[in-house]
């Protein structure tokens, strides 16, 4: 029974809004009636009646809520105030019936509104916590002194205060637990101790914090602001080492991972600075600096010099806003030596980039007292002495020293004597000696009538391309390719790339063929299929790639390719060549045969024929293949070439029986 009453009591914060709403609305009507009496009289009566009844219900529920004992004595103020307000509302209703003077009625009404406001405010404080209505004020940053820290007062307390105390504080003590004081934490709540000092791991505090989000007992509940992972981790670590309230630890005693958590927890210490003036900024920008604001919450700037050489005038312009500079990038800039001395006064500088600059060892002295975290000195004349000087700066975390004047021996010495991250560049053995890529031709043409200019891609100047034209593998003594190279005869070009310090490339081999005649007049007597019908490509002396869709290929689906052309005037050729391909996925097979016919007075006669062996099983590689058909010089008027298609895909093909494709990209005579 009691449980049920307690449950019903929990409805109090919901129901309470009914009388408040209705009553305030009625008050609004009363105010309107001042100008326009008697317009709302009836509604005002109804409003008072409704708010009185609902106020009684809300009071009863409120009393039940009080009986649960979740609250301290403070709840009594709210209770009595609310009951009084309810009674007053009843009295107002009575005055309404009595039809007292407007003045008295309106005055009493206003008084009751004030009562209501006070009692509601007291109630709201119980639900939302006392601080709920505080005006926003500047956040006070807790600063950790570099030497020591008390985890409870500086960290744990403030987390609990922010995320837990609105429900587990002095005013509202859900589950009887108070987390705002040491005593409260030690006392625990109704269900037991918050912290188990014997088995810290089993502490109820941790148990509730780590329950899944949907669990009823999860803390903070789903609807409230959650702990950040860092906050949770900090509380956990604190409990696990025995929840020390008094202990103050020196920074050196804290282990690294815990330190990292703490650094995350405390906002980085950035001293507020005033924004740089517009006039100063304009002057700096005019001097070829680039200035970007660091972030919206601070007036720090990140500066980069865009020119090659920094004048003292320019530097002095920047010097005016030195307090605002948090990062300075002077990479690849010639810096006037007198400027280095002035770095000393860039009091907020955290990152300094001086790669490829003229900085010297003695200039580093002025960086001693700056809050620098990162300095990069790649490709400078800095030596070991300079670095020893620089390492005296305690705030440094990272140092970049690639290509400095520090010898390999000194490197390990410097690294060993320092706790910070020092980068000397990528280790020499990172990449094994690399092989140069083989030479690549700029254009892909290999067929020519008279002569052909061949040129190779030359990715970098230092590459030396050696070549031969007569079959030997090129070596360092072979001819060097210069800007271009003329091929005048059929043959094989072999080429190899050399770069000092690299392994020589593999050999590129390209077969060139001198063609006897170009064929310009021809008649295609078959009809190509699909989108592969551009038959002018058959005689353009350009070969296609292994992709049959590249535009160079003419395809026949199920049919033979038949082409007729006039015999050349000077028949000086001994071969007809047909270039074809096969592709399993494209249903493309090699031609069954290639036949060459000649037309003389006796009609068409077969001059030469090449049977092509077909594959007998599945193949995976798409392949180009060239067929040469030898021909004896004949006295004929026309030639006819028939590239025979098998017609259907052979039995071993997944799609056996379907029409097969034959593709040809070139036919030529040589």
């Amino acid at each position, binding site marked *: 029974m009691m449980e049920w009453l307690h449950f019903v009591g929990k409805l109090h914060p919901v129901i309470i809004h009914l009388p408040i709403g209705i009553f305030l609305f009625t008050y609004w009507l009363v105010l309107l009636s001042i100008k326009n009496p008697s317009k709302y009289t009836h509604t005002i009566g109804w409003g008072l009646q409704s708010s009185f009844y609902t106020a009684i219900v809300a009071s009863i529920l409120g009393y039940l809520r009080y009986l649960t004992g979740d609250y301290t004595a403070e709840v009594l103020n709210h209770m009595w105030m609310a009951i009084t307000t309810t009674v007053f509302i009843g009295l107002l209703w009575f005055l309404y019936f009595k039809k007292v003077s407007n003045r008295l009625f309106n005055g009493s009404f206003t008084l009751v509104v004030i009562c209501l406001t006070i009692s509601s405010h007291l109630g709201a404080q119980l639900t939302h916590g006392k601080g709920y209505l505080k005006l926003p004020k500047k956040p006070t940053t807790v600063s950790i002194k570099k030497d020591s820290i008390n985890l409870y007062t500086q960290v744990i307390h403030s987390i609990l205060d922010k995320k837990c105390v609105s429900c587990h504080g002095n005013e509202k003590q859900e589950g009887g637990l108070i987390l705002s004081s040491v005593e409260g934490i030690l006392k625990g709540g109704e269900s037991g101790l918050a912290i188990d000092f014997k088995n810290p791991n089993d502490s109820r505090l941790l148990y509730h914090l780590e329950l899944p989000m949907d669990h009823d007992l999860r803390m903070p509940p789903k609807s409230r602001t959650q702990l950040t992972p860092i906050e949770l981790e900090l509380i956990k670590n604190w409990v696990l080492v025995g929840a020390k309230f008094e202990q103050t630890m020196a920074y050196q005693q804290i282990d690294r991972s815990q330190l990292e958590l703490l650094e995350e927890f405390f906002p980085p210490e950035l001293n507020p600075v005033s924004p740089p003036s517009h006039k100063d900024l304009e002057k700096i920008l005019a001097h070829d600096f680039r200035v970007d604001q660091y972030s919206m919450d601070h007036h720090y700037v990140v500066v*980069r010099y865009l020119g090659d050489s920094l004048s003292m005038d320019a530097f002095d312009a920047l010097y005016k806003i030195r307090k605002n500079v948090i990062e300075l990038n002077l990479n690849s800039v010639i810096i006037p030596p007198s400027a280095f001395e002035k770095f000393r006064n860039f009091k907020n500088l955290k990152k300094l980039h001086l790669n490829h600059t003229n900085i010297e060892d003695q200039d580093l002295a002025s960086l001693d007292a700056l809050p620098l975290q990162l300095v990069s000195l790649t490709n400078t004349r800095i030596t070991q002495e300079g670095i020893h000087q620089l390492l005296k700066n305690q705030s440094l975390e990272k140092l970049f020293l690639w290509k400095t004047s520090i010898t390999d021996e000194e490197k390990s010495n410097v690294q060993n004597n320092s706790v910070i991250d020092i980068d000397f560049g990528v280790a020499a053995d990172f*990449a094994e000696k*690399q*092989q140069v*890529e083989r030479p690549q031709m700029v254009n892909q043409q290999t067929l020519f009538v008279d002569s052909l200019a061949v040129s190779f*891609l030359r990715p970098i100047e230092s590459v030396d391309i050696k070549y031969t034209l007569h079959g030997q593998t090129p070596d360092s003594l072979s001819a060097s390719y210069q800007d271009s190279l003329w091929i005048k005869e059929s043959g094989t070009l072999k080429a190899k790339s050399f770069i000092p*310090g690299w392994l020589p490339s593999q050999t590129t081999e390209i077969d060139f063929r001198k063609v006897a005649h170009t064929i310009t007049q021809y008649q295609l007597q078959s009809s190509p299929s699909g989108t592969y019908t551009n038959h002018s490509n058959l005689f353009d002396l350009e070969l296609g790639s292994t*992709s049959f869709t590249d535009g160079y290929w003419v395809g026949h689906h199920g049919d033979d390719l038949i082409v007729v052309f006039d015999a050349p005037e000077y028949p000086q050729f001994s071969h007809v060549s047909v270039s074809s391909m096969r592709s399993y996925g494209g249903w493309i097979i090699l031609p069954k045969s290639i036949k060459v016919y000649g037309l003389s007075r006796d009609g068409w006669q077969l001059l030469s024929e090449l049977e092509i062996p077909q594959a007998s099983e599945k193949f995976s590689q798409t392949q180009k293949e060239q067929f040469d058909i030898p021909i004896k010089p004949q006295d004929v008027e026309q030639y006819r070439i028939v590239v025979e298609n098998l017609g259907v895909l052979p039995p071993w093909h997944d799609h056996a029986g379907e029409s097969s494709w034959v593709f040809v990209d070139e036919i030529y005579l040589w």
Partner: protein
Amino acid sequence: MPHFAPKAKRIIYLFQSGGPSQLDLFDYKPKLNENRGMDLPESVRMGQRLTGMTSGQATFPLTGSVYDFAQYGESRAWLSELLPYIGKIADELCFVKSMHTEAINHDPAITFFQTGSQLPGRPSFGSWMSYGLGSLNDNLPSFIVMLSKGTGREVAQPLYSRLWGNGFLSSLHQGVQFRAGKDPVLYLNNPEGVSRLERRKMLDYLAQINQHHEENFGDQQILDRMAQYEMAYRMQTSVPEVMDIENEPDAILQMYGPDSLKPGTYAANCILARRLIEKDVRFVQLYHVGWDQHANLPAEVKRQAKDVDQPTAALILDLKQRGLLEDTLVIWGGEFGRTNYSQGILTDDDYGRDHHPRCFTIFMAGGGIQPGMTYGQTDELGYNIVQDPMHVHDLQATILHLFGIDHEQMTYKYQGRRFRLTDVHGHVHHQILA
């Protein structure tokens, strides 16, 4: 401008288009090897949808990788033998093994990664960054894209330029594609016979006319266009300078590997990415295509991995030795993962894998990311995530956080509502922040 102090200022996003197989590269599952050939248990799949490419398969034979795995570095990160160079820098990297997405096919999935929505039309990640943070170098676009073709798969999924489009943001924020070869940006050079001075005069006159036009109409797009013309004019000198790798020392070229000498390869693009970052370009995105191994996976993935292994590792180390990794975030990853079962017939040394959006691996380095860590975990058959799932929107929120941006506050009002990169989702995963 960043809302709060940023950890990273620049980003190189090495997008691996097609869906790299996490099971053959990063996510080591000995249990899959033990159960090779076994049908995928329903208790694991739990009725989750498959793509149309394998949903008709009678069985789903599980298969581990044919490649060996080993642990690398002090962080003992598991990696396949296909990534020896990545292994050398394992301690610089943060592997997220619990990425997941909703999209199941390439284009929606890449669009989702790039724009936060599976449907085309929203601004790309790089455009949002450019809009939110502005440019760091007035002479180059703040968002630059380069593509390279993988050697693993000849015919790869295409990419669309809308993936680096500005959507409803100003056209100033769109990604600019740099191509390999003599003419990196199309239509940038003056036409034959037009000198730089004449170009300047023409632009000045054009600006006058446009100014007049703008005064009459007040259309922001006119101003955007004028700014674009000016940017193009400045790029006429800045682009050739940055694209000229002639002066790169030999040791650097060797570090990135032999491909670095071949314009248009992933390795060459990696060098260019570093050069662009040195010039303070905000967002450099590389796309390497060809990771879509539905069949012939062992052979193809080996070639793909070789394309990227050495250059990626070299890029990260090269950034590091120049002090750039401090505030440059590098991300390597694709649009989804691949299934733990074989698509098509599983043979002794061959198999394929279908698209798998429920778990996949990416890795990150630099820019405020915790180095030497592995985050998230998949089940022992590599099908579902069991720990610390990281959704695409979570990744986006986390990256924005590194740049000092509250992803819920970076909005753009368009067609009556405020849009975000992370839509109405996304949580920052603080656990992977340094």
